[in-house]
């Protein structure tokens, strides 16, 4: 079973809806170890994305993801704008000319996107960032796909890994981003970026396993 353009669109829209729904929660997490704007900023960006992507005429998945990327880069600000922009740009670059994706192709696109985010933000695993949700998610998806799992099973493993990675940020001491200024005091709080990244991976699972 392949991932269609409509499912790609519903992934982007679902991510926007999840951000809107969790706007206050993300901002609350950010106020504990950051500067209390993650939900607000991501929501502003995704609302701008939602206003654009519904009406892309004859676009392929690459154009959909690139439009999302450029909109986030120009509307979000903060660190999240360039980082989520880079993530969607990575998805867009890896899906050039594609109108549908196999499980392997989605896995390769997510791998490329996570690599691009790591290069832009220079973060490693256990730095208490988005990467702590995204990297395990990309790893789990790749491993499931290599084992020949169905799309549903692979996406479920991907989402579970992201959720576990997000929860695993709670005891970590931040080494990147604004939370790192707190040193030891950043431990005991869930990372807001890892949380929005889990929402992204969850939106992908929901969209790609739904009938459209």
């Amino acid at each position, binding site marked *: 079973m392949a991932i269609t353009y409509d499912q790609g669109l519903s992934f982007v829209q679902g991510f926007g809806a999840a951000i809107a729904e969790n706007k206050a929660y993300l901002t609350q997490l950010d106020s504990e170890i950051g500067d*209390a704007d993650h939900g607000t900023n991501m929501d502003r960006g995704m609302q701008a994305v939602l206003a654009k992507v519904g009406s892309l005429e004859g676009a392929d998945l690459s154009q959909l993801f690139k439009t999302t990327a450029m909109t986030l880069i120009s*509307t979000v600000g903060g660190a999240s704008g*360039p980082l989520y922009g880079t993530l969607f740009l990575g998805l867009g670059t890896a899906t050039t000319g594609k109108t549908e994706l196999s499980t392997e192709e989605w896995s390769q696109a997510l791998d490329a996107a996570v690599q691009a985010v790591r290069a832009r933000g220079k973060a490693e695993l256990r730095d208490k960032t988005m990467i702590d949700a995204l990297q395990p998610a990309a790893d789990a998806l790749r491993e499931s796909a290599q084992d020949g799992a169905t799309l549903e099973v692979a996406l479920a493993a991907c989402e579970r890994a992201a959720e576990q990675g997000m929860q695993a940020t709670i005891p970590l001491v931040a080494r990147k981003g604004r939370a790192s200024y707190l040193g030891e*005091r950043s431990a005991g709080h869930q990372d807001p970026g890892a949380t929005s990244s889990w929402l992204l991976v969850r939106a992908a699972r929901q969209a790609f396993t739904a009938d459209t």
Partner: protein
Amino acid sequence: MKKLINRVEDVVKEELEGIVAAHSDLVRVHFAPNYVVRADAPVSGKTALVSGGGSGHEPMHGGFVGMGMLDAACPGEVFTSPTPDQILEATKAVSGGAGVLHIVKNYTGDILNFEMAADLAKADDIEVEAVVINDDVAVQDSLYTAGRRGVGTTVLAEKICGAAAEAHASLKDVAELCRRVNANGRSMGMALTSCTVPAAGKPTFDLGEQEMEIGIGIHGEPGRERRALATADEVTEMLTRPIVEDLPFKRGDKVLAFVNSMGGTPLIELYIVYRALARYLDGVGVKIERRLIGPYITSLEMAGCSITLLRLDDEMTRLWDAPVNTPGLRWGV
């Protein structure tokens, strides 16, 4: 939340409309993307200075645009970095053919957005150099953090480098000077209260009636240590000692002493802090050669202050004294 605003979404836009209504002799404002440029931009043959960052730190940076200081400022949303397209458009608008210096405060978001903008500007054949200000001694500078934050020294660097650029120093020389100012400036701040980001609607953190936060940043991010409230003299020493020991400032050094309000602390208290600072520095043989006292790099309505010391050399002192004409700083004109 009690604030003198209309709609939360319009805070930055309406502030910029107010700036242009008040200071159209000094600056022009471009909307969507938002940036402030000096009225006579671009100045041909002059190195242009562009800075920017989240809003909520007024007068920094928009209030420092004008003759002898910045050519452009890019205000982001409150406490949110400006976006690359915004920085790129501002860079293009002030480029006078002699290159553009980006003065960037060391925050992950600011660095990422300015880096993307510099890449885009270079693709448009504009020569861009970036200098990162990281003067906050409250943050451990190590491989395991995002590094020291850029705070009070930013204001001093913008003034001093702006004067050099006004005298037609090259991009390379202005960048070098900016790095020298950063290397000789150290800051530390404290908070008596939190602040409320308009879009968040409630205070960023809670601080009890008998508590204070030492080592606070300028975005309401908690500092490193929460302590029992102390007197102005004690607080001044808590801030000044780590600053002096960090560089270190030595007997015989001449400094610019900058006592800054976080927004909610009045001048009467800043002068009480300045009094203690002057005594402390006198005690360790450091001479205050120039001073700046007031709200220049603020954190919305947060009560508290920061202290910045900049070790001066003759060139920096001369450039500090040079004329400046901006909404936020004005002398010699």
